[in-house]
């Protein structure tokens, strides 16, 4: 098929490669001047092209996601070493030539695939030039030099007298200059990086690479146009055209199509028919969400929709029995008889149990993008912008997608980067699981398969479930599904207003999206500062206690006892401030708990130690007290959303004694201090008892300690419910 090309290729090369032994391709870099004129199998033809396509797709998606040059360079070279490795000549890798041959072949196959439309050509040139640039920059300097010397770039070294004449910048005396027609370095001209004179550009040697890249680009552009003109002669080959069609469509959808290959097998976990609805709400990409809701609404799906959704569910992990059960339930307007006759065969067919008995893989994004009716295919492509926006909002608003995010998603859609839009939606809806922008579905990869999306989403939930206390179990009890965002509410359940969830999600995004120094402090709300003041009070109390121990000055003891009270004041205030400013934050909720631990956990315990609970067992009990407080606060944060609420959204009761109640203990301690019933004066009331061993030994404990132990138990209790005031 390439026989039409010029037959001069390698003969020209041979004289120059003597230094490199018998290598047919002396350099890793290649300008692809001559078509490959060796025999290839049709399989090589396809696989090498597919591998190169993966790399180019990665380059395109890097550009679409605004990765920095360094970042996209590293991502791309990772892909390169995976799919199309090119080892430098120095390594003496015996496969060196075969690798380069493959690179050469794949480039030309893709030329055939992408020369056919203006748009494809433009994108191909851009991606290939970027790939060349990356390889050029990563090539070993000596080899790059050798490569450059092997070609004539037709640049003219500037002699000294000419240099003086055009008055080249004097400070770079040592630097060599070359002159070329300015049209060969438009990028340098645009940035005014070169001196122009009479249509000649004087290019310093450090900018020479620009000429090389430009040359590559211009040559490729010309070659593609020529190929496009000659391509009709290829149309007769029935084996090649389908491959080429497939390749160019793959590029259109930006797919590196990993999933297309291995999605014949199903995910490991078995999924039950009744779980599908729940999973659809949480984990499905928009295409499958749409199909699911159409199915729920109409109790029917058309053939293609059925096929698309059925195969998706199969790969998701629905066994054939569960699948039949699911479809039977969904097609509720049909009788059993009708269903068995018309649809059951179809379902079993998907599983390879009927007809051709092929275990069909699920449709990849690439396939979905090519099809196109309204209720199946890729909604990012087929929907009108308005419909898409409302579909996105209705589907993903409970998962944290907000109106303000839509512009970003729509921008990707408008530039026809549908997979980027889908990936961005994934990132936004999984922000609560810690997925950040640019991370994609892991390692920065974009969505290429609906099942990949769903599987990754379910994975993420599993990992976050480990953190959120047995969330699914609770949700089963509750019968209703609680979206993860509900767990983010501020510690005061009473602040819950309908729009609060949204505000919180926004606050969370703000933390994620702010970069730079002091981002934490810059994002502080007023309420957060008040909460911090609570922590400050607690800390002061602790230091005052310590000072009292050092000096025995009772003033310090009083200070230590008053500070937790001040802390309580701030604790009340922060909720008020948050409600008043209508700005609660994720941070606020956590801060609140941590500050409480200091002021109402650690500080009172230390006070108790100071006034006299100083025996060995006393400290053990006080430590227990602190730990129970700690556990209680953690439980509160995790479960606050699950406590039954009254109409106003206020929680009806506290589960276990709230930790600020420990101020009661502090009050008792201060009464004793006033009466002088403390260590160093008259001693604590009720004195000590010796549980074991000698008096004054390890077994001695103050009876008062048991009050603290009881208090600790009450705090962690689940059955004890303290009604809210």
């Amino acid at each position, binding site marked *: 098929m390439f026989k039409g090309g010029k037959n001069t290729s390698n003969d020209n090369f041979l004289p120059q490669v003597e230094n490199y032994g018998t290598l047919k391709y002396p350099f890793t870099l290649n300008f692809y001047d001559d078509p490959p004129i060796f025999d290839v199998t049709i399989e090589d033809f396809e696989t090498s092209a597919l591998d190169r396509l993966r790399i180019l797709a990665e380059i395109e998606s890097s550009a679409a996601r605004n990765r920095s040059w360094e970042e996209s360079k590293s991502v791309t070279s990772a892909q390169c070493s995976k799919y199309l490795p090119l080892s430098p000549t120095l390594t003496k890798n015996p496969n060196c030539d075969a690798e380069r041959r493959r690179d050469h072949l794949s480039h030309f196959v893709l030329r055939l695939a992408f020369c056919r439309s203006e748009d494809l050509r433009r994108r191909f040139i851009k991606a290939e030039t970027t790939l060349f640039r990356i390889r050029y920059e990563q090539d070993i300097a000596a080899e790059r030099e050798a490569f450059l010397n092997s070609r004539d770039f037709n640049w003219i070294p500037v002699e000294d007298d000419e240099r003086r004449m055009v008055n080249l910048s004097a400070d770079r005396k040592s630097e060599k200059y070359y002159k070329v027609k300015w*049209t060969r370095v*438009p990028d340098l001209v*645009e940035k*005014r990086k070169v001196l*122009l*004179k*009479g*249509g000649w550009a004087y290019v310093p040697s450090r900018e020479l690479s620009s000429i090389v890249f430009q040359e590559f680009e211009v040559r490729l552009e010309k070659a593609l146009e020529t190929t496009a003109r000659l391509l009709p002669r290829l149309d007769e080959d029935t084996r090649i055209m389908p491959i080429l069609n497939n390749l160019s469509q793959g590029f259109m959808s930006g797919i590196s199509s990993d999933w297309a290959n291995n999605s014949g097998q199903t995910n490991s976990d078995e999924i039950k028919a009744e779980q599908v609805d729940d999973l659809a709400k949480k984990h499905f990409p928009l295409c499958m969400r749409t199909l699911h809701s159409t199915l729920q609404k109409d109790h029917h799906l058309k053939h293609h929709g059925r096929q698309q959704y059925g195969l998706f569910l199969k790969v998701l992990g629905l066994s054939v029995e569960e699948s039949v059960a699911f479809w039977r339930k969904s097609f509720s307007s049909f009788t059993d008889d009708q269903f068995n006759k018309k649809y059951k065969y179809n379902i079993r067919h998907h599983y390879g149990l009927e007809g051709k008995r092929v275990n069909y893989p699920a449709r990849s994004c690439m396939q979905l993008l090519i099809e196109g009716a309204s209720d199946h295919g890729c909604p990012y492509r087929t929907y009108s912008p308005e419909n898409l926006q409302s579909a996105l909002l209705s589907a993903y608003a409970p998962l944290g997608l907000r109106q303000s995010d839509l512009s970003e998603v729509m921008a990707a859609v408008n530039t026809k980067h549908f997979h980027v839009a889908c990936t961005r939606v994934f990132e936004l809806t999984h922000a609560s699981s810690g997925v950040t922008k640019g991370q994609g579905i892991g390692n920065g990869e974009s969505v290429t398969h609906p099942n990949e999306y769903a599987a990754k989403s379910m994975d993420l939930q599993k990992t976050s479930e480990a953190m959120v206390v047995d969330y699914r179990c609770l949700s089963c009890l509750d019968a209703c599904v609680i979206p993860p965002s509900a767990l983010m509410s501020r510690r005061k359940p009473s602040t819950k207003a309908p729009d609060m969830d949204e505000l919180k999600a926004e606050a969370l995004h703000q933390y994620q999206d702010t970069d730079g120094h002091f981002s934490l402090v810059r994002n502080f709300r007023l309420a957060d500062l008040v909460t911090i003041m609570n922590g400050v009070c607690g800390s002061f109390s602790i230091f005052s206690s310590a000072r009292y121990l050092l000096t025995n000055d009772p003033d310090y003891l009083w200070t230590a006892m008053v500070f937790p009270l001040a802390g309580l004041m701030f604790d009340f205030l922060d909720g008020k401030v948050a409600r008043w400013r209508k700005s609660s934050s994720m941070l606020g909720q956590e801060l609140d708990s941590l500050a409480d631990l200091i002021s109402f956990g650690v500080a009172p315990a230390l006070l108790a130690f100071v006034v006299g609970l100083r025996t060995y067992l006393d400290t053990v009990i006080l430590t227990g007290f602190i730990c129970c407080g700690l556990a209680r606060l953690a439980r509160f944060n995790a479960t606050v959303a699950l406590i039954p609420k009254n109409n106003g959204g206020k929680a009806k009761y506290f589960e276990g004694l709230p930790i600020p109640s420990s101020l009661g203990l502090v009050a008792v301690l201060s009464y004793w201090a006033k009466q002088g019933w403390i260590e160093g004066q008259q001693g604590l009331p009720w004195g000590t008892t010796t549980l074991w061993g000698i008096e004054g030994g390890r077994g001695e404990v103050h009876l008062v300690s048991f009050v603290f132990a009881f208090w600790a138990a009450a705090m962690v209790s689940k059955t004890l419910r303290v009604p809210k005031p």
Partner: protein
Amino acid sequence: MSSSDAPNRPTPELMLAFYRRLYPFKTLFNWLNHDHVPNRLFTQREIAFSLPGDVYIRYNSFNTADDLKKQVCQLNPTRFEIGPVYSARPRDRKTLRAGALTPILRELVFDIDMTDYDPVRTCCSGADICKRCWVFISAAVRVMDSALREEFGYEKLLWVYSGRRGIHLWISDKEAMALTDQQRKAIVGYLTVVQGGKESSKKLNIRNGGKLPPSLQNALDYLRTVFGALILSDQNCFKSQEGYEELLKAIPDSRVVEALRTKWEASPSRSSEDKWSDLYKSASKQQASTCYPIPNLMVALEDIIFNYTYPRLDIEVSKHRNHLLKAPFCIHPSTGRVCVPLDLNMIEKFDPKEVPTVQQLLEELDALGEVEDPTAPKEHHSDWEKTSLKPYIDIMDRHALSLVGETRKDNKLKPSMCNV
């Protein structure tokens, strides 16, 4: 100005008479074709007609100047525009394979429009133009002309007054015609310093590593002289409070800004020149004292000069080969003035208000008297010789002839490549 536009608005009858008797189709043909014998530079050239009522007819092409004239007289367009040379005849486009009609050659064109200067001119605004604001244009023409001739090496430059408030530049050198869109974008980037529009006082990004590129250094040396005469004395840009606030915004040193503001508020009568010299003094003081390395006020002053006087290009016009631009000698539909080519030597003396209008030209013809019998079919080619349009057409003719001469020279060198 705009109020007086209405009576100047040419009627269809006037337009038709103008096309029949005065429009120099032959000159236009020579200029586009670079030769006397029609070749693809003309036959595959897109010409688009604007008819009254927002009707726009694209993808016309013609074999000869007479064909064009016949069609123009038949359609009587308000104006017509010139597009690129395509790879085939644009009028055959429906019979071609999809994608086969691509632009291949096109004059490099630039458009400078007075509206982009609104933030820095005080005499007029919007669509209006007067002799005073023409100075902005003539400065821009000087800068562009020398850059394009000396740095890019182009020679066949034709400046055309756009009929109202702007100026077009057509570059017909062979190399310029063949530029790709990417190269056009590059040249526009090279020549763009001031981003037009609202944020004109935005910081300029023109220094690579702290130094002005040599091309801009040359431009700056010329613009300094213009700045004094135009901005300071004629336009008196910093007289009003908004004017000098705009100036102060561009100064990076807040202490200097405060000092100058208090001084200028105290004496509102200070002229722009005084204010500029105040500013210049503080800049040189700063430069003299070594304790201030940055922010460099002198750099800021240079930026201000660029901001106020450097050409402001309408970049969209130049970036793509397939952009259409109004042909020379068309009538501007709202002023009735002819889009006349300009000689570089008279650019400073040019007054847009003295450009002949279509009524005036036809009156001149009428004044000559009905020499010939109007019913007799007669060539009107030389009618313009007797009107005030003649000097402009002579400019264009000279330019076209130099292009034709160039083509002849090329053909002699390589007779086989006969312009196809």
